[in-house]
């Protein structure tokens, strides 16, 4: 179990909420495809970088951010696959069932990738 940081929680809350609102507003003005781009705003990655910026300084911050960037590249690769599957499953099974299956797919793919990269 890690250490809970209130500032890390707040940064994630603000970035996550702002990204969903930006996605909605862009979708309303420019269409769903453009809104989708903001739905993929790297909020989690940026929040992790900002939190590292609060806790660390100098070379420690740089090396921690490099580790985070490497992890984010793998995570976003998984998310691209999940987003492609989501477009298909939502059209085929509807919102509720489709979204549940999307979450299931994400969990299984992530588990396999994390297991492969950890061992």
């Amino acid at each position, binding site marked *: *179990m*890690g250490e809970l940081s209130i500032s890390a*929680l707040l940064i*994630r*809350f603000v*970035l*996550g*909420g702002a*990204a*969903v*609102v930006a*996605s*909605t507003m862009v*979708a309303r003005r420019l269409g*769903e*495809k*453009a*809104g*989708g*781009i903001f*739905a*993929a*705003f*790297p*909020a*989690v990655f*940026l*929040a*992790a*970088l*900002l939190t590292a*910026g609060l806790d660390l300084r100098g070379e420690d911050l*740089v090396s921690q*951010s*490099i580790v985070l*960037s*490497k*992890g*984010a*590249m*793998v*995570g*976003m690769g998984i*998310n*691209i696959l*999940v*987003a*492609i599957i*989501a*477009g298909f499953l*939502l059209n085929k099974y509807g*919102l509720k069932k489709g979204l549940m299956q*999307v*979450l299931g797919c*994400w*969990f299984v793919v*992530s*588990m396999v990738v*994390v297991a492969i990269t*950890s061992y």
Partner: protein
Amino acid sequence: MNKDLLLRFLLGGAAVMASYLIIVVSPWEILGGIFAAFPAVMITAVLMTGIKSGTKKAAKIANGSVYGMIGGIICAATVYMVLKWSHNWGLSMLVGLFFWLISSVLVSSLKERIALIKIKPFNGKMVLAESRLRDHK
């Protein structure tokens, strides 16, 4: 309208916060690793659009997010490279964000152009066939 946006803000923020809580509280390291890249914003945006505007529009949001996520990989790669090159944390984040937006929009418009090119040869053949038919007459 403002209430709707506030609800979306609260849900989006709560989803990203919840994935962080799972990482911190989880006794299994593997679960923390999995939730570190949970697409909370995309899931919330898709869910809210689906509830408000229907599944088809929600699926379009999911399709559009593919371009944003390709931009996300480019953003992370840019942050990585700028950090290696300059060791400047703030600059790496700014350049990374800029490249995320530019590359997402570029990939999205490139995909639309490719789709148009795929349609054009078919139209060209149709025009050619029509003109041949006219000549034959």
